[in-house]
């Protein structure tokens, strides 16, 4: 085991500075410095605030990750880094840092796709990735349904959001309900105290919409419906049943997500579904996905919540897989691509 290569991964595509260290397929460290509290003052992620925080955090985070893993940087055999998609300025801090390390240590550099990393992280959690796998990635930044035939080379996007990301909808509805940012965990908690009493709209699930946007998502109409419903109660002088609204909204989101994901598996003959991204931490999404997958005979894989949100371990995991499969490293003039398509797995 000791002879397996060690890969250090850096993730700075949004507001978390993540550094992960993997030996082979064993996770040695997953260290995060988050600027989320700073962003909370602004009511959302501010790109420039995130970029400044990444620069401040990068050295201490690498140091903490090495200490946790019980290694020194000289033990590292390759560096992996998110090259996109994400916030351009934030990505640049990560890529520049990764190059600084790779150049100094004389080891290969892999610029990788953030979305592919969300899929690859399950290798360090549940072992080798069954291929093909269907991956549902849901967070504040993405809502994607991906057909993964080879996590290092062949990923197809079957669908994505046509407006808001799923996590964004959680944030916006939380604001409407007077719950703090980030909205996901607060809505989940509130929903547990409530009942699904309101039938909010399910975007892109019927008729022509379903034909044209078979595996796409839309959460903007749902968000508007919740806002109108709450406003109507407020204008009528009634108290808003926050827990019930949260539960009903959450049900609408996870119903569409799981329904489309399971349908994609069945239509493409894929027997494994993986869920990743921050919204994968949602307890109702996990429960409904579990029961629908069981009914359909599909194996559900969901990494633990800490590995579903953005982190460095996922980047290290994909880097280790690229190294294991002998893929060509990136060149030193690697750039960033804030809208990197998922079909492009390495930079």
């Amino acid at each position, binding site marked *: 085991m000791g002879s397996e290569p060690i890969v250090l991964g850096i993730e700075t595509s949004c507001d978390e500075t993540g550094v992960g260290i993997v030996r082979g397929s064993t996770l040695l460290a997953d260290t995060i410095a988050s600027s989320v509290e700073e962003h909370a*003052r*602004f*009511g959302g992620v*501010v790109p*420039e*605030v995130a*970029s*400044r925080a*990444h*620069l401040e955090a*990068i*050295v201490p985070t*690498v*140091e903490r990750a090495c200490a946790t893993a019980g290694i020194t*940087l000289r033990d590292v055999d390759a560096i992996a880094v998110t090259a996109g998609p994400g916030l*351009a*300025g934030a990505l*640049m*801090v*990560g*890529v*520049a*840092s*990764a*190059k*600084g*390390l790779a*150049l*100094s*240590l*004389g080891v290969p550099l892999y610029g990788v796709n953030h979305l592919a990393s969300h899929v690859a992280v399950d290798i360090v959690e549940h072992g080798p990735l069954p291929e093909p796998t269907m991956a549902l990635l849901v967070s504040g930044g993405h809502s994607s349904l991906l057909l993964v035939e080879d996590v290092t080379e062949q990923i197809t996007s079957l669908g994505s959001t046509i407006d808001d990301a799923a996590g964004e909808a959680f944030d916006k509805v939380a604001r409407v309900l007077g719950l703090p940012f980030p909205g996901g965990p607060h809505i989940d908690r509130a929903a547990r105290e409530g009942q699904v009493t309101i039938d909010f709209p399910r975007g892109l699930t019927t008729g022509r919409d379903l034909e044209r946007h078979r595996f796409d998502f839309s959460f903007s109409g749902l968000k508007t419906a919740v806002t109108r419903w709450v406003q109507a109660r407020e204008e009528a002088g009634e108290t808003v049943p926050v827990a019930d609204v949260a539960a009903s909204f959450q049900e609408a989101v996870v119903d569409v997500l799981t329904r489309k994901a399971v349908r994609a598996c069945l239509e493409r003959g894929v027997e494994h579904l993986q869920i990743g991204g921050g919204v994968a931490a949602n307890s109702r999404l996990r429960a409904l996905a579990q029961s629908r997958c069981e009914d359909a005979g599909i194996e559900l894989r969901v990494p633990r919540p800490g590995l579903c949100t953005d982190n460095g371990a996922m980047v290290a995991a994909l880097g280790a897989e690229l190294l294991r499969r002998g893929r060509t490293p990136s060149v*030193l*003039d*690697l*750039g*960033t691509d804030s809208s990197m398509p998922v079909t492009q797995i390495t930079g």
Partner: protein
Amino acid sequence: MLILGIDTSTSAISAAVSDGCGLAVSRAVLDPRGHTEHLAPTIAAVLAEAAAAPADLCAIAVGVGPGPFTGLRVGLATAVTMGLALGIPVHGIGSLDALALQVAEHHTGEVLVATDARRRETYWARYAVAPGLVDPLTEPAVALPADLPEEARSLPVAGRAALLYPAAFGDPVHDADGQPVLDVDAAAVIALVRQGLASGKALPVQARYLRRPDALTTAERMSR
């Protein structure tokens, strides 16, 4: 003592290596939006030209700005991670100070350094210079060219703002080849680090942004 110099605060992505006694290599790529792509290859190129390996370096000198944020951070992030990986110190130098030192080779007296801060503004500071010597007369600041003090605007000027806003400023200072001094050369950053270390000055690696992020806090939005 072999030092690597880095500066990404201007349109030039600049890297240099020098040992302080004869060996001096400096290279720059001009690409105002290409700092991420060009810096590491430029560092690799100066090291190769100096026949040095990263492990031969004793320290890193980096320009800490002010400069357009995104590019500036590329230099800083590269410098601090190289320092960490190589186990060597990283020293920071004000990027406008470095430009002033470049001017000092060709001019004695007071100069204005004024670089492109985008949004039609300039990062600027006044200096008294003489060959090899730089004495800052003001702190670096950011302003519209027309808002600089009259006595500053009439001085000989270095930096890209001289080209961008010729009406607002005095005559550009030219180098030995008759070219205006526009962008930071990492060799000047190294030279200032050597001066600073010799005089026992603290050289913190702290980005100089001079502007706060463009965003209002929820509290500020409410109070409008």
